[in-house]
């Protein structure tokens, strides 16, 4: 084990346990007003009239009239209006806000607003979008996948044995970060300051600059301690920041907006529901010859990040396998529901669920165990990815599979469980997956352009200056550790503060499994610079900077989706054993063997924590986390109705890390944040297929769906 991998105590742990960490709602903000939102009750309607009650002194209404700059929350583009002007496009869309001193008074005022709607025909879900003559798409991509294998190694042409054409549905997923979304804003001395839980201080900064139409230096964003995020605090905080900033500007008083759980679920972003059609041909010797993939995402009412989520889904849709011929189409539909957005995995959990189950079905039709069939198709070093990128680094999947198969006794159990009968069944399943680390394509070079700084102080301390946040994932520990280890100084001499855009350069958002690999890599570079030119020592203050440079071997063409979509991949193998109760049709995950190649672990315990937590979130995604939309309204709007895993539901998880240092990552590190979530649903699906002898085509695996499966095709009880 590399010395940097050795776990150290997390510096933020004692304060958090003691309840001393002040999240936004814990901050004392002198004179702060409260704010509440009035939400649309219609999925799509003209706003005929909005009649507001007379306001007591000290209470104000804020809506689109109050926006000094653009009525747009800047994300990839400006398609998300902060407040509606004449049309509402989803249930829960904030129409206006009321701010004032007393929440009870605000609530009464909100209730007294009379909105006259003129309903327009809404579009619900992928079915609804496709029922239209020409569905409204945010984006529609098509490309030909590169052959996975070098031409010389291609199989000789052989006869077609069979074709499977099938379709998979995945549901929406809500983040349920334990701390609901919240934000506070000030207007002082001609400047706006916003603070709250967030992943991307500079996204919020750009959004506020756009909304006000001001010079960037009049806006300051400070991240507050963030009680979980998982992508849910990637783009949505920019929206809330817009609300509190406008209210603070209008009232010239601090304004605080804290969502309760129900409202948070109703109006915040979620994982995109998907429908993924896959059609593959298999030759007589059991090799996939071609695959045709058609990925549809429900994008919700505004485009937001749908295009980039879709891209990652498309680049994941052939899994970790060699496919000689592949054609891909992807669309994100506009529908009348709250916009879907970023969630750990970012399109890849949907794609991997579909492609892994598809491989299982191809294997079954070929008369083979899924793992044997998958193994024969594994991508190897030197192969091409679906976009024609080259897998330059060693691929250790074979070794990793062995590390999971042996302790789990996969072969014996698989054979035994496939013959299972009765009310209580066992199943064992496998998933093989990877995750491209960092932004897709040339995003890091062309869009993010990350910059970091290190400042060594006269007292011998070294300060980390970057815009990446601690949100539970351990960034404070790992980034400090990288700097300390590089400089050869103790960790307690390296300081890390929650980012404040007045202090830190823009090192990009805390997303896309990029924080350690990309930002940590830049800090490593800066630390080397400091060490070699001006080692930190008492009495001297020095500042060094490092800027992102794309590794020279990387090539990418965004217009044709060709080249290296990602500079590096992390890889994973899950074997999951479950018990299935056919009285209640519930799944009990028993044990997971989880083997990962994430390059080098910067801190083993933190990495294992990410893996454990990600696996459990993925189990929820695949099983209990049902989020239905009926007539445009989310049906599960509380933590009672929307069921995330609890301490009784989690399996034993054996994590093993395989070292495979990446030359461009700090100490060889790649990304780990997202990949663990991806592997759960397909392993769960395969295990259920093993237990039931039925084919799965959707998640979550609700009791209703499982019952239907058993009745229609499973092994009889």
């Amino acid at each position, binding site marked *: 084990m590399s010395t940097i991998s050795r776990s150290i105590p997390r510096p933020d742990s*004692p304060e958090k*346990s003691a309840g001393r*960490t002040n999240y936004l709602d814990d901050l004392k903000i002198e004179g702060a007003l409260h704010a509440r939102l009035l939400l649309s009750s219609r999925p799509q309607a003209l706003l005929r009239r909005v009649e507001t009650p007379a306001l007591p002194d000290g209470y104000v209404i804020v809506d689109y009239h109050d926006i000094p700059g653009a009525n747009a929350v800047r994300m990839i583009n400006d398609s998300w209006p902060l407040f509606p002007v004449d049309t509402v496009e989803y249930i829960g869309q904030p129409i206006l806000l009321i701010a004032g001193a007393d929440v009870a008074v605000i609530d009464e005022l909100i209730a007294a607003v009379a909105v006259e709607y003129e309903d327009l025909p809404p579009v619900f879900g992928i079915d609804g979008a496709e029922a239209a003559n020409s569905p409204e798409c945010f984006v529609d991509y098509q490309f030909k996948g590169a052959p996975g294998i070098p031409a010389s190694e291609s199989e000789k042409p052989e006869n077609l044995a069979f074709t499977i054409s099938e379709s998979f549905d995945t549901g929406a997923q809500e983040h349920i970060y334990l701390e609901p979304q919240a934000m506070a804003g000030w207007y002082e001395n001609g400047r706006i300051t916003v603070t709250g839980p967030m992943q991307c201080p500079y996204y919020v900064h750009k959004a506020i600059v756009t909304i006000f139409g001001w010079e960037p230096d009049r806006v300051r964003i400070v991240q507050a301690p963030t*009680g979980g995020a*998982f992508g849910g605090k990637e783009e949505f905080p920019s929206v809330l920041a817009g609300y509190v900033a406008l209210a603070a500007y209008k009232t010239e008083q601090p304004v605080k907006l804290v969502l309760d759980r129900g409202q948070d679920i109703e109006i915040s972003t979620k994982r995109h529901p998907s429908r993924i059609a896959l059609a593959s041909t298999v030759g007589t010797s059991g090799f996939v010859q071609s695959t045709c993939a058609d990925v549809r995402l429900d994008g919700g009412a505004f485009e937001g990040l749908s295009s980039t989520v879709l891209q990652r889904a498309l680049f994941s849709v052939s899994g970790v396998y060699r496919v000689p011929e592949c054609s891909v189409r992807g669309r994100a539909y506009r529908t009348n529901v709250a916009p879907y957005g970023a969630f750990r995995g970012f399109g890849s959990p949907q794609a991997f669920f579909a492609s892994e189950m598809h491989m299982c079905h191809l294997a079954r039709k070929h008369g083979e165990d899924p793992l044997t069939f998958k193994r024969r198709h594994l991508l190897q070093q030197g192969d091409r990815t679906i976009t024609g990128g080259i897998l330059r680094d060693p691929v250790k999947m074979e070794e990793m599979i062995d590390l999971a198969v042996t302790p789990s006794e996969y072969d014996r159990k698989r054979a035994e469980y496939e013959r299972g009968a009765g009310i209580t069944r066992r199943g064992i399943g496998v998933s093989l997956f990877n995750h491209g680390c960092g932004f897709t394509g040339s995003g890091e070079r062309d869009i993010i352009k990350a910059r970091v700084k290190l400042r060594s102080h006269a007292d011998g301390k070294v300060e980390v200056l970057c815009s990446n946040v601690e949100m539970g*994932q351990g960034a404070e520990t790992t980034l400090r550790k990288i700097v300390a280890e590089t400089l050869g100084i103790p960790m307690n001499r390296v300081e890390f503060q929650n980012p404040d855009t007045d202090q830190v350069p823009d090192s990009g958002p805390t997303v896309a499994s990029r924080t350690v690999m990309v930002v940590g890599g830049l800090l490593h570079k800066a630390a080397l610079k400091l060490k070699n030119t001006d080692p930190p020592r008492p009495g001297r203050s020095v500042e060094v900077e490092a800027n992102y440079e794309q590794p020279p071997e990387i090539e990418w063409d965004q217009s044709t989706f060709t080249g290296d979509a990602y500079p590096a991949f992390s890889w994973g193998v899950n074997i999951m054993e479950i018990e299935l109760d056919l009285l209640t049709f519930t799944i009990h995950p028993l044990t997971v063997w989880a083997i990962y190649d994430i390059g080098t672990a910067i801190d083993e315990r933190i990495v294992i924590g990410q893996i454990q937590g990600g*696996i459990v979130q993925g189990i929820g995604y695949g099983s209990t986390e049902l989020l239905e939309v009926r007539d445009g309204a989310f049906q599960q709007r*509380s933590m009672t109705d929307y069921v995330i895993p609890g*301490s009784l539901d989690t399996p034993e998880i054996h994590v093993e890390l395989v070292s495979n240092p990446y030359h461009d990552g700090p100490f060889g590190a790649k990304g780990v944040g997202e990949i663990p979530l991806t592997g759960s649903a397909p392993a769960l699906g395969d295990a259920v297929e093993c237990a039931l002898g039925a084919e799965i085509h959707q998640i979550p695996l609700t009791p209703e769906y499982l019952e239907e499966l058993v009745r229609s095709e499973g092994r009889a009880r």
Partner: protein
Amino acid sequence: MRVSFTVNGNSVMVEAEPLARLLDVLRVDLGLHGVKEGCGEGECGACAILLNGRIVNSCVTPVTAAEGAEILTIEGFRETDRYAVIEQAFSDAGAVQCGFCTPGFVMATEALLRENPKPSEKEIRHGLSGNLCRCTGYNMIVQAVQTASEKLNE
């Protein structure tokens, strides 16, 4: 109405609506911000406190239920030796990520270990089943409770 009770060893009297949530009284009136609100409906345990030694979710406890009671929140518990052992065990096991759930888990751990100083893994999972954590996947928290129990029994 007036309600009097003891919080972390201090007697307090507050003026509150009869239906006021104990959570709001603790957070807003008494400034005890270690008690968190994750769901407001008794589902997540982020607001867990000990009321006469029993674990309760303060978001679904009316303030009237506190009349004459002894309440222990994380702010009081963190001053004790038992807390120090539990905190260390949480840190060693990697049981803390975003930390929003953690004070609630610490209180649930204390409630469990007072009642059952040597719980089995299954009993720990049951003891923590009123608390939700979205970050850790629980196993590292269960490990922490196991370690704390061993240390406290030494």
